[in-house]
Structure formats: structure tokens, C-alpha cells
């Protein structure tokens, strides 16, 4: 059984920006450990020398000409927003700094 502790799960929840209750976190320890056990099959195999597949397709250089296209109407964009002020999206105060 893969050992995934509560601290690890808490750290992952922070990275994923999910505010989970203590109970939810505890449940996740079990659920994620079970899942990790299940996917462990792939960790056992020696695949050194096999290149990873990032794309199913052999495409390269898909490019777009540098020509302007019409933009969205600002009212339509802002209408979907939870809160706006002076044409901008409002968010509560930011604790962390820009990376």
C-alpha cells in the first residue's frame, strides 16, 4: 500500500487551491493511496530507453498569420463576471506576490 500521509495530501490540496475539510482530507488519504496502488503497475516496468509520447500526432509548426481578428464585446465578457469595477474584474485582496 502506497504511503501517502495527511501532510502530503494537505500540501497537494494547497497546490490545487482546494479548501478541504479535515474529514475530506482524511478520506482522500485513503482514496488517493488506493489509486496510487492501482497505477503502481506502470512504475514497476523498466522503460528507460522508451521516449515519452507527448502527442498522438506527428504535427509540427502549426502557425497562425499575425493578422488581427475581432475581439469579444466587453459587455458580454464582463456580464459573466462575479464582480466588476470600471471595466475590470474585481478580486479580493491578494496575499501572495506575483511569482
Amino acid at each position: 500500500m502506497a504511503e501517502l500521509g495527511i501532510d502530503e495530501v494537505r500540501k497537494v490540496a494547497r497546490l490545487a487551491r482546494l479548501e478541504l475539510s479535515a474529514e475530506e482530507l482524511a478520506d482522500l488519504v485513503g482514496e488517493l493511496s488506493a489509486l496510487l496502488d492501482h497505477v503502481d503497475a506502470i512504475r514497476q516496468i523498466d522503460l528507460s530507453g522508451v521516449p515519452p509520447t507527448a502527442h498522438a500526432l506527428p504535427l509540427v509548426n502549426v502557425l497562425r498569420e499575425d493578422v488581427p481578428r475581432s475581439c469579444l464585446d466587453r459587455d458580454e465578457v464582463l456580464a459573466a463576471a462575479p464582480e466588476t469595477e470600471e471595466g475590470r474584474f474585481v478580486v479580493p485582496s491578494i496575499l501572495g506576490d506575483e511569482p
Partner: protein
Amino acid sequence: MSWIERGAAAIAAAVRAGEVTARAVVEESLARIAETEEQLHCFHTTLPDEARRDADAIDEAVRAGREVGSLAGVPVALKDNLCTRGVETTCSSRILEGWKPPYDATVVARLRAAGAVVVGKTNLDEFAMGSSTENSAFGPTRNPWDLDRVPGGSSGGSAAAVAAGIVPLAYGSDTGGSIRQPASFCGVVGLKPTYGLVSRYGLIAFASSLDQIGPFACTVADATLGLEAVAGEDPMDSTSLGGRAPSLRLELGGGVEGLRVGLLGDFVNDVSPSCARAANEAADALARAGAKVDELSIPEARLGLPAYYVIAPAEASSNLARYDGVRYGLRVEGPDVESMNARTRAAGFGKEVRRRIMIGTYALSAGYYDAYYGQAQRVRTLMTRAFEAAYEHFDVLLSPTTPSEAFPIGAKVANPIEMYLSDLCTVSSNLTGHPAVSVPYALGDEGLPVGVQVMAPALHEARMLKVAAALEAAAPAGARAPVAVGGRASPIA
């Protein structure tokens, strides 16, 4: 026989010829929704006014002698993860409840241009994560064959809508089997195209390197028509393949004489007796029709499930980061933006989605990337090579679509791993990018539909569909939709 039962090709031909109005056909569909929706819950949003308006416009165009397209007047249902401009698109999630996209997905635009009439947005497992449609935030969809059973997932609503004779054509998305598995459970044809054949622009992403949009229909011919109407290069999607949509219907009736068919023993051995039997019988039927049928084993195929359950959640964890309460969708207030984000996401995402975001974040995180995500990408290469090697000896591969018939609602929801095993036979095609189709073949021991899966190399849809058509012709009667609600194997009155 209703127009819906006659199918998409027949409707389009008749509408173009003026034999029936698009309006009349759409009224049939709307009436069927009214009859069945309370029991089935196929839809999150129905569009009766818009549909009538669109149908009238088609009829007007026909009267005026204008071109109306390959799907003229055909009522279609769209999975609610396809963006429809001005129409609520939720991915069956609270975090997008009420959100109206300001643009149409490319597939939606092409359907409209082809004259299709959208009657509604169908229910799905939240963000396409699931195999039963029980993960929808708005309640499950029920299987028309048996209301206590799941329709499969994640495209359960679309599959059920076709199976219940509400629409002859519906669209879903397939990331690990989300079109093919519900197709099998509901007794309809469900097709996942080659990755890149159909534009993903406007498909709300689950796992970007695996997602594809595809059709549901009662016949292979209609599914083919449905694929042709939307396939082809899209400049808005960098991963869409160049060139025009292939013309596929030409070879459908060509027969399977001399085609080399490989029955995937690995999957046959891992499924329920009735599913194994259906696959074996299908293989025999093809042999009788002139194909060269042999059994083969691709041991690497078994690595598909674990690889999938690393790659898909990893990509999803990144794709779903944008749901942060800032620009659209749900917002739960907090004293600062960080807690606002975290509360919004915890409240807006259901359990399964949260689970997958967590496992995906973990698989990508520092110290674990190589062991999990990196390794899974290598497994992908291994599997692709193995399948391509198999295709040197076989033209198509055959397997069961699912490990079982439709299971009861609530049976697996408490056990995620159990649920994940539903994808056993389907994930390989998503990982390799190859096309696959599920064709309803038989009724199982529980009297429920069992599908059989045909797989082909990349861009060989024509060959794949030819074999599918042959299977369809050979299948025993009564094994496929449309079906009356709750009526196992009874035809519509």
C-alpha cells in the same frame, strides 16, 4: 415509424426534397422529450423555442431553393461540455452553473451550418469524469432500457437521448471511453474518431491529449454521416489534422471479404461471460462474412488503465485550474483571493472531480513527475508501438466494449476503482489516438445491450466503419435502440 426512427440520413434527404418539414420532425423530438424527460433526465437544458425557430429557418431555405446541408432538419442533442453561444453550458458542474459561452464550439458551428437543429444540452458526469453519469451535479441520467440502471458515462445523456428515440443523432466526447461505453450500455452506435480528426475548439477540456468529440446514432450509417459533418481541419485547434474531412460513407457497404480481423484475447478474458460471448459471436459473424479472423494478444494493452489514470487526471488538474471564481462561474467569497479561489473550487467541484484534481496534481508535482507522469507517457509510447505492430498483421481489431452490461445506479459510485475498471477495453484507443467504434451486437444475460468494439489504425475510419456496418447487419434483432423507456427490447409504438 416516426421520422426519428427512420434516422438522420432519411430525415435530411426528406427535408431537402420537401417531403417533410424540419418543423414537423423537430416537433416529434420535442414531444418525445416531454414524454420521457422526467423519467430519464437526459437533458440539462432543452431548447424548444430555439429549435422551432431553427427548423422554420431550414424550411424557409428549402422553400427558397437554397442549400441546406447534409443534416438539414435533423434534431441533435449536444453533450453539455460543448460550448453553445448564449446557451448555458455547465459540464454538469455547479462551478459553471449559469455560464453562457460567448462563442460556439467549432463542431457546433459546423452542425448549424449543416442544417442540424439543436434540441438540447445533455447531462454528463461532471467535467466528463466518470463512467455512469452519476457524477453529474444535477442528478443522474437513467438508462432507457431499465430505469434502475446507469446509461454509462460520461456522455450518458447523449447516449440515452438516442437510445430513447428522442434524437437520431447526438454528440458526446470520449477521453477514456466516454462515448463508446455508454453506447454499449444503451444499445446505440458510439464512435471515437482518430485524435485530431475533429476539432476540440469549444470542447471544454478534460484531458487535452486524449479528448475527442464523436457521434451517437442508432445506425452505423447515421454515425458516419454525423462524423463527416463535423470532421476536418480547424485553424482554431493546433492539434487538428490538416486537410478536408474524409468522405466515409462510400465504402460502408463494401463488405469484409479478405479483411484481417484480430480478436483481442486479453480483453475477452477480462470481461463478463455475456460480453465475452458477444465479442466471440461477432468474430464468428465476420468470419462467415468472408473476413480472416484470428485471435491475438497485446499484453501492453493492460497497461492502458494505470497509464490513463495518471495522464488524464494530470492534464485535467491543469485544465481545471482556470475555474477560480474570478472571471465567470461560481464564486464563494473569501477574505483574500487565495481563500476565495480555494472555497470556490471546493464548493463548485464534486467529489470525483476533486479526487482527480488531487491525484493529477500529485502526479505532476516535484519529485513524483518522473515516476508517474513521465512513466505513463512512456507506457503510452510502448502501447502505441505494440498496437501499430499488431496492425501489420491485422486490418482491424475486435474486442468487447465494456466489461459488463449496464450496472445498477449506485452500485459502483462508492468505489472509484471499481468504476475506473469500466474503461478497461476503451482507454487504449485514447492513449494511441487511434479510432474506435462500439456497435450494439447482442442482449446480455440480464437482457441489457452489449456492444462490440472495432478498432483501426489512425485515419482508417473508412475501413473501421465498413467492418462496423457488417457487424450491424449480422447482429441479432432486438439488440439495439431505439427503445421504449423502461422497455427492455421492446420497440417504440
